[in-house]
């Protein structure tokens, strides 16, 4: 694994953070960088300009509810967010996050982390280290193949690797069928 275990800050949000807040509709046609600059501005106008690599979002229940738009997860990843630890996730957002390479963990962390705490998300080790409070919050580990998928940068880069392996090990270079 090649996880960047850099320390960051905690950004804490409540329940029902929806995909319109994460990826506002009026910027959906814009490039991802533009969309990401408006991520969560409705509830925290300074979020996009202050969040950076290693920072972790800690939230309440039903994070990512609403639309199936993948840009909700892509925007957070583009801003450098190391991952999300929420009490629960909306189903399609959870899948989309993993498929675009954004680590997501369901855990009751919101009462044990305050906004601005120094934290480190250990994705492979499945824990959230809170340096400020000198505590470690255990997270439910992701299975190895999902870790690998996230580590590859998401589903499409992961499949590119897989198909490259398949075709390079194949006898005929015309054979590019999916391994099932």
């Amino acid at each position: 694994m090649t996880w960047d275990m850099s320390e960051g800050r905690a950004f804490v949000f409540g329940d029902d953070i929806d995909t319109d807040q994460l990826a506002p509709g009026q910027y959906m046609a814009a490039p991802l960088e533009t969309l990401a600059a408006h991520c969560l501005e409705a509830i925290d106008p300074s979020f996009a300009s202050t969040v950076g690599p290693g920072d972790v979002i800690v939230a309440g229940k039903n994070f990512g509810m609403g639309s199936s738009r993948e840009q909700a997860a892509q925007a957070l990843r583009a801003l450098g967010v190391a991952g999300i630890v929420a009490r629960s996730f909306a189903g399609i957002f959870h899948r989309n996050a993993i498929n675009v390479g954004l680590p997501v963990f369901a855990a009751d962390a919101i009462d044990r982390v305050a906004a601005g705490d120094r934290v480190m998300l250990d994705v492979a080790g499945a824990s959230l280290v809170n340096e400020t409070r000198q505590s470690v919050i255990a997270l439910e580990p992701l299975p190895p193949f999902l870790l690998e998928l996230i580590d590859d940068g998401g589903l499409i880069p992961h499949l590119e690797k897989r198909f490259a392996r398949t075709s390079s090990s194949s006898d005929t270079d015309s054979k590019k069928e999916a391994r099932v």
Partner: protein
Amino acid sequence: MPMTLAEKIIARACGRSSVQPGEIVTAKVDLAMIHDSGGPRRVEPILKRLGVGLFDRSKVVLISDHFVPGNDEAGRAILELTRRWAAEKQVAFYDGEGICHVVLPERGHLKPGMFVVGGDSHSPTGGAFGAYMFGIGATEMAGVLATGEIWIRVPDTILIEWRGRLSEGLTAKDILLALCGRLGMDGGKYQAVQYMGEAIESLGMQERMTLSNMAAELGGQTGLIAPDATTADYVRAAGGEPGEIGQWQADPDAPVAEHHVFDAASLEPQVAAPHSPANAADVGDYPDTPVDVAYVGACTGAKYIDLERAAQVLRGRSVAPGVELLVAPASRRDQDRAAADGIMAVFEDVGAKILPTACGICAGYGTARLGDDVTCISSTARNFKGRMGAVSSSVYLASPYTVAASAVAGRITDPRPMLTGGGQA
């Protein structure tokens, strides 16, 4: 270890004898359904990047329904791209035949025990056939089309039991809106919702499809109904082979996460106020709510049975002055059958505008989008702000009976008095 229906299907799809809730497994899909909006135009660039074709063209069904009939240049271009892709990839393709969730089972593609993905959030509809079917995004669909596989967390099962029978004038839509009101739009927790009980078992397949479809509004991953003779008869009539339905039943003592029980006999017609299906309340709670538009449309509100019910109210009556009645049948076959049975004539007699068999304004497409400040009562599934037109428009969700009765009265109205004689031809 006793297993739920969801666990049995997923275990079979991932080649295991059993699975446990919470496990993450990789399953082989038996079928992938895509449509013109999230389908070829979104997945083909990814397949090209991967340098691969379809995992199995016989397991892919493409249905055009979002941009049908092609009202502008962009829509027509997407339909052209869709048609070219279908011809090139030689997949089963239904072009302008109706809404994907209705056309897929209508043409015999679903049967009990299948593990199916759809590129649309209302894909849980397939759960009505005892198939584990759920919706995914376009990137993930591209992955499925390339590999034939998808990862899934084995879900818990949330049983929703309706005891007793629905009374006259009540429908699957009333059941589902009531559930949205009581359990909320995250009540399904992205787990396997499964409907059961006498009220569910007594419903025909088109009504069951409405329940399963709107498992999406409950936040479930799918909305299962255990297959029975009604399921098998439908699948056979559609040209499919239902197989041995006995193997697709939950074990009697299989553990479930939640079991909710409701009484069908005491259910009142439901209306969900703007802008959420969770704003459902009894029709009597809307004493003076005028409407401008009444819409009978969508996969959950304009199948044959929905058209038949709306016509039952409208026959021999007229639409209130100033109210526009729009009817968009959910599939060509249902429309043809409704025409043969005199149902379409009822709509024409009351001056309804007949729209194409497509997703139409339910999904914010087409030419009939709601204008500024318009109040609409609709037999569709979602009434989110701005979804069906202008941000200032308001949409109330209700059954086809209630939509038709409200069109007659010009305001939100309990349909039951119109179903008990008086005024009918």
